[in-house]
C-alpha cells in the first residue's frame, strides 16, 4: 500500500503543501478560489507549529477510523478498494462529529462551515499535490511494505497469512518470489511479522523511524 508519510525532521514550515492542496482542490477556471466555490476549495493539509517545530497535519486514512465510527449520517466511510476514508458530500450535514473525534486534526470544516473536508489523496494524479510540492522531501508518497528478494526463499507463508489476498508468488529469474499488489495491501504488517526469513519489513513503523520521531518531539520542546 502506498501512503503519504511525513519526515518532520525535514519540514521547514514553508506551507507549499497547503498551497498546492488548495490549488488542486479549486476548480481550474476560478480566479478567487474561496469566493467561487466555498464548499470544496480549501486546503486539506495544515502546517501547524508545535512548540518551535512545524508539522503538517493531515488525514491518515486510519483503519477503524474514529471519524467513520462517529459519523451519524453514513457520509464518512471506509472504501475497501482504495483503503481510504472518504466523504460522501451528498450525505454530510456538517454536524462535526468527525471533527470532534479525529485526534489528528485531519478532518476540517470547509470555508462556510457546510461540509467537512479531508485528504482525498489526489487519486486522479500519480503523486498527491502536497507531496509533489514539498521542496524538502518532508512529505513522501511511498510503499509501506518493502521486500528483500535476497532473503525471500519463496515459501509462500506470506500469501497464506495476508488477509487482503494482496500477495502472490511469482516465478522470477531468481526463483519463486513473493510480490505484493499495492492496490490491495492495507499495510497491516502481518506478512512482515510472520516471515521466517525477515525478507519483508514495514517501511514506516521501523524501530529506527519511531525512535527518530520520539527524539524529534523531545527536542522540539
Amino acid at each position, binding site marked *: 500500500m502506498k501512503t503519504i508519510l511525513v519526515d518532520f525532521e525535514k519540514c521547514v514550515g514553508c506551507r507549499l503543501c497547503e498551497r498546492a492542496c488548495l490549488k488542486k482542490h479549486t476548480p481550474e477556471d476560478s480566479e478567487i478560489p474561496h469566493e467561487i466555490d466555498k464548499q470544496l476549495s480549501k486546503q486539506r493539509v495544515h502546517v501547524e507549529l508545535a512548540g518551535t517545530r512545524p*508539522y503538517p497535519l493531515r488525514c491518515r486514512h486510519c483503519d477503524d477510523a474514529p471519524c467513520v465510527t462517529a459519523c451519524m449520517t453514513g457520509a464518512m466511510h471506509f472504501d475497501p478498494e482504495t483503503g481510504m476514508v472518504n466523504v460522501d458530500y451528498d450525505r454530510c450535514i456538517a454536524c*462535526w462529529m468527525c471533527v470532534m473525534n479525529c485526534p489528528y*486534526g485531519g478532518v476540517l470544516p470547509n470555508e462556510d462551515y457546510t461540509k467537512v473536508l479531508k485528504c482525498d489523496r489526489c487519486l486522479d494524479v500519480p503523486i498527491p499535490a502536497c507531496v509533489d510540492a514539498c521542496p524538502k522531501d518532508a512529505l513522501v508518497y511511498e510503499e509501506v511494505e518493502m521486500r528483500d528478494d535476497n532473503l525471500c526463499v519463496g515459501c509462500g507463508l506470506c500469501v497464506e497469512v495476508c488477509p487482503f489476498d494482496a500477495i502472490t508468488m511469482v516465478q522470477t529469474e531468481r526463483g519463486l518470489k513473493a510480490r505484493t499488489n499495492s492496490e490491495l495491501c492495507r499495510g497491516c504488517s502481518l506478512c512482515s511479522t510472520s516471515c521466517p526469513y525477515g525478507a519483508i519489513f514495514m517501511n514506516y513503523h521501523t524501530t529506527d523511524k519511531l525512535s527518530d520521531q520520539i527524539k524529534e518531539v523531545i527536542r522540539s520542546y
Partner: protein
Amino acid sequence: MEHYKYVIVGNGIAGLRAADTIRSEDRDGTICMVSEEPFLSYSRPLISYYIGGETTFEKMFYHEQDWYDKRDIKLELGNAVVRFEPISNRLTLKDGKEISYDKLLIATGGKSQVPDMPGKDLDGIYTFTDLGTTQKIKEKIKDARRAFVIGGGLVGLKAAQGLVDAGLDVTVVIASNQIMSQLLDETAASIVKRRLDRKGIRVILNTSISEVLGKDKVEGVVLESGDEHECDILIFAKGVKPDLKFLKNTEIKTGEGIIVDNHMRTNIPNVWAAGDCTETFEESFGRSTTNLVWPRASEQGRIAGFNMVGIPREYRGWFWMNSFQFYGLSCISIGNIKPTGGQFEVMINQNIREGLYRKVILMDDKVIGALFVGKITTIGTLNGLIKKQVSVKGHKEDVLEDKLALLVF
C-alpha cells in the same frame, strides 16, 4: 424454528455496526436482525433534518436492501420480540415466528414517554425518537401552525429547528435555567440562544407544562405558572430511557439499563448488549450509568460485534461529548465543562459579538474539558489529549489555539 449463529435485536446504529463488524470478521455465520420498526437502519439524529426538509426520506438510510443481501444478513423488520428465553436461547416474534440463536445482541436503544398529566392522550402529542412518529409529525404539520416542544436538550432544540424550517411558530419549554444544560455553560448557551431567537425559536426557561388542553386533539398547553398558550402540535423531547420492555421477567440483569461488562457482555454468557439500552461503569462519572448518546452507541456496537465473533475488544469508557450546528453556529463540547470545586484551572478566549468562544478546563496540567463555539477546527486533538490524559504543562497557551497536534501522537 429458524436458527441463526448471530441474532441482533434492534435496527439502530449499535445493531448495524455490530452486524457490519460480525460480517467482516465471520464470512459464513448466519446473521439475523430483528426490529419492531418497519425500516432498514436509518440515522436517528437526522429525523429533525427530515422534518425541516433538509434531507429526504431516501437519505435517512445508511444502506439499501442490496447491502444486506450482499452480506447475507436476514432482516425481520416490523416484527417485535414478544417473548425472550435467554436460558433456552430462544426468541418469539410478534407474528409467531420462533428464532433460536448461538449468540444474541440486544441493541434496542432508548424510548421516550409522554409524562403523566391531564390530556396526555390527545391527538397531536408526539415523542421524538423514531422515524415512524416523525412521518406522522410531518403529515400533521401540513395543517398546523403553532408547536410546543418540551425539553431544551439537543434533541428538543433540533426538533424545534426542524419545525421552524417547516414553517411553524415554535416555542420550547425548558425546565432548567439555560438551554442544553448538559452540553453548554451559561456563556455558550447565551450565544446559541441568541442565534435561535434570531431565527424565531421562542424559548421559555425555568418552567414546564402541567396540562394539555383540548377535546380530542391538542388545542393548547398550560404552563406551571398557570399561563395558557395555544398550540396544535406538542412534542416531548426529554426523558429518553433504555428500552427494556422485552426483558421483563427474564434472567438478564438490568438496572437503569442492561448491565454489561467492558466487553459488552451481559450476565448471560452468550448475550451481549450495546448502545443506548446499556448501563456501563464510566470512570469519568465514577459510577455505573446510562448515557443515551449517538457516538457511544456506535462505538459499543462495533466493540460488541468484535467480541461476539471472539476477537476481544475492550470498551474503555466514554466521557460526555457532543457536537452540533444551529443555523451556521457550530459548537463542540467535550468532557467536563462545568467543573465544581477549587482545583480546576479554566482558560477562556472569547469574542462574544463575533460568536466565538473557547473554554478549556485543566486539572493537574491535564485537559479535562473543552467547549468551542464558532470556530471548531482541530478540537479533535483536544479530545485525544483528554482521552490519553496527556500533561500539557508548559503549553497551556497553545491549548486554546490550534497547536496541539504533536502532543497527541
